[in-house]
């Protein structure tokens, strides 16, 4: 089934795609059908720079298990950073 479930957020940073590095200002996080991954539903993240057009996008499609592990790892690293840095 199509879940349509999407969270959108503003972000600040850069991402690297086939054409090199781009600034990214927006992200879409959604659990829905993937384009390339083999699972029927995956946790998908698009890092976007809308003013540069639809192709200014770095995308990942992760299994639910991988996505949860990634989220946990991100939190662990940020929480472990020296005080005042993150």
């Amino acid at each position, binding site marked *: *089934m*199509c879940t349509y479930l*999407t969270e*959108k957020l503003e972000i600040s940073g850069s991402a690297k795609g086939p054409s090199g590095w781009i600034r990214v200002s927006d992200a879409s996080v959604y659990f829905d059908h993937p384009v390339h991954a*083999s699972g*029927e539903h995956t946790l998908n993240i698009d890092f*976007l720079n809308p003013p540069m057009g*639809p192709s200014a996008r770095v995308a990942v499609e992760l299994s639910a298990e991988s996505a949860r592990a990634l989220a946990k790892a991100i939190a662990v690293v940020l929480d472990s950073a020296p005080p005042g840095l993150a």
Partner: protein
Amino acid sequence: MYDAVLAETVTITGHGGEPIEAYSARPMAPGPVGGVVVIHHLPGYDRQTKEFTRSLAVGGYNAVMPNLYHREAPGASPDDAMAAARAKGAIPIPNERIVGDAAGGAAYLRGLPNSNGKAGVIGHCSGGYHAFLAAVSLPLDAAVDCYGGFVVGTPPDGHPLEGIQPLVDRTKDLSCPLLGLFGADDVAPSPQQVAELEQELKAQGKTHEFHSYPGAGHAFLQVDRSAYRPEAAVDAWQHIFNWFGQYLAG
């Protein structure tokens, strides 16, 4: 046997009279042949659904697939267009716009030189929902719903589709015979929802034929997915061509 097929990107007139991109696949036989509007699934106007469209042409039908996300990202690759539409909050696309784009596809097909004047619709996943939507909204000659979710049932609270009316309530408006292809292990639509839809079709006296495949879930026709079930898919394709042969050919 002459079996040439031409597949190409074309421009059709979509909802609101707007030009939109579409993928057209047509047998080069002089005809007359029927036509099929293909409605893509949520991941978009992708390679797999273009292949599906070409398969219909190889089977003897003119087929056209409107790019439902063209307005959000003209000229973009299909996956980028889907992502752009999602980022802009355009997904789910309003039903009114889907119907307008499907009507544009049907008009394109009926206007082809080798058309017999008949047009049907087919879609899978969200496109199955949209195929049913088109069939209760437009004058068509045949429809195929491949495991469309939410034709029956109300989306749960908080779901992006919350508030939409179940299409089953519009069964009385169905304009053409309906073929339904479902996986018995699917949860959207569940076997109970498929049964409810069939009950309503019977109550309204609508011509229909349903097939539910044991051991198959959602997306069993998707050849590049782990959900693919070759035995069910081969049988389903046979039913698709039988259905269109019965109601679109000639």
